[in-house]
Every structure is written in C-alpha cells, then in structure tokens.
C-alpha cells in the first residue's frame, strides 16, 4: 500500500486505524486531505476476517448457529433469526405459533439494544463523551439481563433453533420484559430531551454526510440508512417474514439522508420496536416453543440433511438486510453458505459521503453508518 491515492501537491494522505478508537473495531481508512477537507478516502477492510463461511461449510447445520452469533456481536438474536429462516426454508420446517412470537419479541429487543448502542457511540464520536452512551448502556443492560435469563448468555445468545427456540418463556420472564419495555418510552423521551434539539448536535449532524436517494439505491444500501434517505423499504413490511404481518407498526423515514436523519430514524425505530414488543406480549399464545419433529434433529445434528437445493433467508436486521444463502447437496454439511452482511455493503458508500466534508465529520459519518466489524469482515 505504498502508492498514493491522489498524486497532487498540497494534499496529505493520513491513515486511520486499524486501532483508531473511533472506527468501532479494526477498521482502517486512508484519507487524502487538503487542509481539513477530505479529497479522497479508501477503505481497508479484512483485519477481522476469520473464515466464517468456510468454517460453516465444515460444520453441521445446527452447529453454525453458535458462529452466527459472532457475526454482528451486538445483536446475536437477529443473526440467529436470519439463519433459522434460511435453514427452515431449505428443510421445510414449520415453526409453532408461540415460538414465532418469542422470536419476534427477542428480535425487537435486540433491535432496541443495537440502536441504543449506536446512538450512544455516535454521540461519543461527536464528542459528548460517554454521558449519552452511559444512559443508553444503562437501558441496554436491563435487556441483556433478560437475554441472559432467557437464553443463557448476555451477548452470544445462541437462542434460536430450527423450528423454534431453545427455551420457553416463563410468565415471570414475560413480566420482566413487560416491565423493561414499559420504561423505554419514558427513557426515550428523556434521551431525546437530552439530544434531539441540542444545538451542538444539530450543527454537527444536520447537512453532514448526506446520502442521495439514487446513490443509496444503486449502492444497495439497506436498513435505517436507506430509510433515512427517504426510501420506504423495510423487509419486515415487504417480505412479512415470520409473523410481522400481524403487528401494527410504522416505518420511519428521513428526508435528507444526513447524519441527523440517520440518528433520528433510529430513535423512532426504537419507539416502533417497543410497540411491536408490547403487541407481541399481549398476543402470545400458549403452546409448544419448539417443533417436536425437529427435536431429534437437534439432539443428533448429523440427521439434519435437507434435500439438495438452495434457500435464501433474509431479515431486517438493525443494520439492514441480513441474508443467509444456503446450498445443500443432501449431506449434513452445507455445500455453500454465504452471508449478505449489511455492514459491509452499507460501508461501500463511505467515500461518496465523506468527500468534501471535514476530517472531523468523517468519524461521525462512519459512526452513523452503524458497522460492526465482526459482520463486515466475517
């Protein structure tokens, strides 16, 4: 990497990372500066590459679950969800009603966790050092306690199984979830009073790092970043996977696609997620939490041999479209396994958003994309 990006006098090429604290992991970028203005920016990714897809192709189908936790390690529930959908489609497994409700509750709680952390660390990048982040982490902590209570682990949940979930939700746990969720709207009001109208935040974020609609669509951006640019595309609404067609929720949209819109879309999405969780808790039926037919397959993973074929399961993860592509050749191991990671694809427009902005804004723009390097590099 010795050649320069722009061979012009007056420009200075500087290197961020891979140990730069603002880059949310081992992410490196090379920026060409003219004064303080960014003229060019190149991403260098792959420092956390750990052969996820190849490892999965050497494992049984149920064994891959534990590895999907490690993709986007901030919301492992959503990662499990996508993989479970893909494999269930491949093998034609049905999911009991109660399990679907539990899945939706967990997935939406994971979305809240992810957005809380994102907003907290975005404010860290902006210089509001750890006060908003601490408030966000305080609420996240209660949700992680629920995750530990339900699945056994705070972050690496490994909770979903083919045809259901690992453990049932008890009445106590449902009450606990109801309690935590009922606190969230008041907390979000307070959080917004702290942040949304703050003049410093507005000046740093509004009209910074704008992403035009057509570029967002052409680059394949998904998730809150696409919706902040004003495009109404939410896989929960378009695909209606699992039981998302039963819940009443809105899809928040931004107008300009700047950093402020991306921040605010996430705040609004958290409010919608709270609504979904409340509806799901109110409507959760009794019944089995795991398809009884798949239990022997989980006890003996080598028996899980889907017929030859392929399947693509996708979900609206908090970061965008998280897709799993599985090809089976009839053996207990996937013949091909691919992850469509939203972090990686959303990152590709970083240069377009940063060029012409100031160097301090590049950090904020990167923070607003919401990347997790575990998923970007796999």
């Amino acid at each position, binding site marked *: 990497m010795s050649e320069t990006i722009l061979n012009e006098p007056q420009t200075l090429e500087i290197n961020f990372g891979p140990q730069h604290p603002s880059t949310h992991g081992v992410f490196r970028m090379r920026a060409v500066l003219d004064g303080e203005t960014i003229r060019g920016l190149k991403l260098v990714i792959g420092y956390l590459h750990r052969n996820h897809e190849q490892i999965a192709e050497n494992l*049984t189908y149920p064994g891959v679950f534990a590895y999907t936790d490690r993709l986007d390690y901030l919301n492992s529930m959503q990662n499990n969800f996508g993989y479970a959908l893909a494999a269930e489609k491949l093998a034609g497994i049905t999911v009991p009603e109660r399990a679907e409700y539990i899945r939706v509750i967990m997935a939406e709680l994971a979305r809240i966790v992810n957005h809380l952390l994102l907003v907290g660390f975005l404010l860290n990048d902006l210089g509001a050092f750890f006060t908003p982040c601490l408030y966000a982490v305080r609420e996240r902590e209660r949700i992680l306690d629920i995750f530990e209570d339900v699945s056994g682990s705070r972050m690496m949940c490994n909770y979903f199984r083919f045809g259901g979930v690992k453990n049932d939700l008890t009445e106590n746990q449902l009450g606990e979830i109801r309690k935590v969720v009922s606190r969230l709207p008041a907390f979000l009001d307070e959080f917004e009073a*702290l942040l949304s109208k703050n003049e410093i935040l507005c000046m740093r974020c509004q009209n910074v790092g704008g992403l035009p609609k057509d570029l967002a669509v052409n680059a394949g951006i998904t998730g809150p970043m696409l919706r902040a640019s004003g495009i109404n595309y939410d896989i929960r609404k378009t695909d209606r996977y699992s039981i998302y067609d039963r819940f009443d929720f809105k899809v928040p949209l931004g107008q300009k696609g700047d950093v*402020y819109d991306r921040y605010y879309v996430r705040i609004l999405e958290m409010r919608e997620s709270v609504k979904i969780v409340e509806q799901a808790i109110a409507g959760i039926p009794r019944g089995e939490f795991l398809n009884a037919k798949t239990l022997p397959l*989980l006890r*003996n993973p080598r028996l899980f041999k889907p017929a030859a074929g392929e399947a693509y399961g996708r979900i609206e993860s908090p970061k965008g479209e998280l897709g799993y592509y599985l090809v089976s050749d009839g053996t207990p191991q996937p013949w091909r396994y691919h992850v469509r990671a939203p972090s990686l694809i959303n990152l590709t427009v970083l240069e377009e958003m940063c060029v012409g902005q100031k160097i301090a804004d590049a950090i904020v723009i990167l923070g607003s994309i919401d990347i997790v390097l575990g998923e970007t590099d796999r």
Partner: protein
Amino acid sequence: MTRPQIAKEKNPVFGTGILQGMWVTMKNFIDSYFKKADQGGIFTIQYPEELCRISENSRNFPFLVYDAAPDSPRCTACGICERECPTKCIHVEMAKDTAGKPLRKPAVFEIDYGLCMNCGMCEDVCPFDSIFMDRVYEIAGRDRTKDMLIGKDALLKPNAYFQKIRPKDAADIDARRKAAEAKKAAAARPATPPDAGGTAS
C-alpha cells in the same frame, strides 16, 4: 401509510436545547443518589464484595456429572460431543482394561476452556445426560496451555452440584433417568409372573 416525520423545528432561543440537556443530566445525577437501581439509580455493583445474580439458564463452560462416585461417571466416552463441538475443544479417550477391552468410561476427557465458545452444543447432543454447561467465572489462568486445559478430574462434578445450579433442569433429568431405569429394570426381568395374590392386602 402515515409516517412519523422527523422534527426539525428550531428552538425558539438559541441555547435552550443545551440547557434542557443539562437539566436532564442534572436530574440523572441527583436520581442516581436517591433512586433504586431499577428506577434510574446506580446499578453498578462492587464486584469482589458483591456478586451479580446469575440466572438459572446462564451458561458458560461445560462440566461432567457423576452420580455416585467420580470413578463411575455418566459419561460413556462415546465421543459424540467431541465430534459435534464446533470449535473441537473436547478430547475424549475411552478407558480400556488390562486385556484391552473398552470400558465405556473416559480415560481422558479434556476440554480446552481457552477454545470453548460457550455455545452449549455438547449439552444439546449428549445422549447420556452427562455434559452440562457450568457457570464458573473466576477461572483466570496464567498459562494458556496448562491452566485452560481442564482435565477429567476437574470437570467431574457431583449431581448435587448440578441440582444446585439448575434445580429445574436437574429435576426433569433426574425424573427422566429414574423412569428409564425403572423401565430397564422391568424389561430385565420379564419372566417373573405378576403376583397372583401373595403380596396383596
């Protein structure tokens, strides 16, 4: 579809947003002293003196259960966990007697805690209810190869310990094992005719 619009209205006076934010931080600062942990107070704990409550489902590293004595564990060294472990952190060797006949119990059972990723797959696949996930956490070591490679003696824990950490699961499994044993015992002596009336009354 109605969409929540993004509020972009300006503050009436420049600076009120900052003042409002400072009021929130002030409120949180005061609340942290006078409110309980679940209502906005301080929720950190002083770790070595106080310990967190650990939920019953909590899992981190596997251990082996024995019923009567550590010499006769439930584990039959079948090697299913070794085969299914995603990180291949388990190593099992079956014990053999002097004649070389396999004894259906482990001679070597090692788990590399440094490699284990706490997924719980071994617990899921074990057909003998032998391996379960523990919740020990003060296990830091100085040497990756020696201190993190846990051998059979350290892994074997009595059933009473399992009943203590996971009462509900342990009760279920004990009941299931008892039923299976009773069935086996009944199947072992099918020749005994049912008593015609000797022990009745």
